[in-house]
């Protein structure tokens, strides 16, 4: 286009003049490249591909149970409040009306008041953001507490390694921090 300006100039400038309009091409390739990811994410958020990227399995909690899934099959994501791992869950068909609230925690809670983070959502699809300290031992257990409408409480657990292998990989990469 502008060959005239290229005569007495540095190689960098020549390069810029020759290739600058290709920036357009590069920029337009960006959304094209991200399109598969965009539609995969849209399907994940809609629940077209299930309650999460990886279903960890069913956890028995007293008379009740739930299906636990990792929202994303990856380690905790960075957050201003510390690393956070998002789990999704679905209550068993019979317990939707029985369970008042469901909580998630690393390690066994001492009481209902320290049951951990609460799940938000419907019995069919609910989610909780679990803080995962970098010093969490890889053999930790994930404890689920459920509360009934009359105040009864039941607990159940699943090894973290089973609930989220990606989190274990992440913990191993962190190394043990004092």
């Amino acid at each position: 286009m502008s060959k005239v300006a290229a005569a007495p100039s540095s190689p960098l400038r020549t390069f810029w003049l020759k290739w600058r309009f290709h920036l357009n091409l590069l920029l337009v390739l960006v959304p094209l490249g991200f399109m598969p990811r965009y539609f995969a994410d849209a399907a994940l958020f809609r629940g077209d591909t299930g309650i999460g990227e990886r279903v960890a399995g069913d956890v028995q909690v007293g008379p009740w149970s739930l299906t636990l899934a990792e929202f994303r099959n990856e380690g905790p994501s960075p957050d201003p409040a510390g690393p956070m791992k998002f789990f999704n869950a679905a209550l068993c068909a019979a317990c939707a009306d029985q369970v008042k609230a469901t909580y998630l925690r690393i390690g066994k809670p001492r009481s209902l008041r320290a049951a951990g983070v609460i799940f938000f959502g419907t019995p069919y699809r609910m989610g909780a953001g679990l803080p995962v300290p970098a010093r969490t031992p890889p053999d930790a257990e994930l404890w689920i507490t459920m509360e009934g409408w009359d105040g009864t409480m039941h607990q159940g657990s699943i090894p973290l390694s089973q609930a989220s292998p990606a989190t274990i990989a992440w913990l191993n990469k962190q190394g043990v921090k004092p």
Partner: protein
Amino acid sequence: MSKKSRSKLWFLVHSWLALPIWFFVLIVCVTGTLAVVSQEIVWLANPEIRASKPSDDAEPLSFDQVIAAIKRDDPQVIVRSIIRPDESHFALSVGLSYPDGRSVEAYANPYTGAIQGISPAFDFQQFTRALHGWWLVPFTNGYSWGWYLVSFLGLPLLASLVTGLVVYKRFWKGFLRPTLRIRHGARIFWGDFHRLSGIWSIWFIAVISITGTWFLIQAFLGDNQISISSEPIVPVIARDKVPTSAAGVPAPMIPLDDAIKIATQRIPGLEASFVFLPLNAYSHLQIGGRGWYPLMFQTAQLNPYDGDIAVSHLLSDRTPLEFVTESMRPLHTGDFGGLWIKLIWAFFGLVLSMMVLSGLLIWTKRTALATANALKRSHKVQRQAASIPVMQTETQEANP
């Protein structure tokens, strides 16, 4: 610097602002235009989102009646939210949760409560907004870099407006004597078009570039955990405020219509247009809508068991700064006053897209000319520095 060479410089800056990325800028303008009327485009294409009246004297249902109708048709489904769109020809947007784990937006008829359809996996409205807003780059940690990429364009757009007005001598005369010469060749036509549409869109380019730049600032503030919001952080409902009931019997909540009545009484001028139902037993019911100032929403969070308003966020709670910053998004999207404002925004969005294109056409034609001239001259005078003629030919435009 002399007055003439200064205007030459301004002109060069104006010519070069968007040039290397002109196609990117064009696509952002076009997708933005589409995003403004995306809801209307879907309305035209898909009868499921139309609010068809079953009979002439049909009255819209209350939110409780809508939920009852949905539950009657499908007892398993759980309603998570209801949004009544600003324009009455749109169906209600209802957030539904299905036993198979799907959580989708559905379209409910406001007069019968019937679910007319479920938003498709390819949601045109969401897609155009994602493409325009963040270039589809996913949000992984804070704002996506696509968001920064697009919102950064607010700055060159603002600079184009300013430099354009500086180089267009006495531009206000263009309002009185509009010029659009059609029979003088493409170069003249596009030049006239660029100037004419430019002066008539001064206000629009200013609005879009300033609000676009705000999105850049917003991302920067967000990613650095700087908050200017007066919105209270709402804790979950205290344990003793949630009644205990018999095993297997969820504690009864007050009817939604009663909750809306309570919120409307407490918040003067509230037109409740959306409700978000509690997300668990310890979560509030959120009711919101517009007030006297059409660019912002007011919300109230109620205890769903006794109707007690725990937190509200009203227009009167906002700081003057928030009136400015919260108005930025509706001003950018044109979504605050119904169909006509959207159509005005879409029209000027189209004009802005055409300005990017006409600017490019002018540049190409002029550069082609300048290149030809420069080559001719360099045949005559071998030793003459080659870049100077280009600048001179280019800047002739500064004094049309």
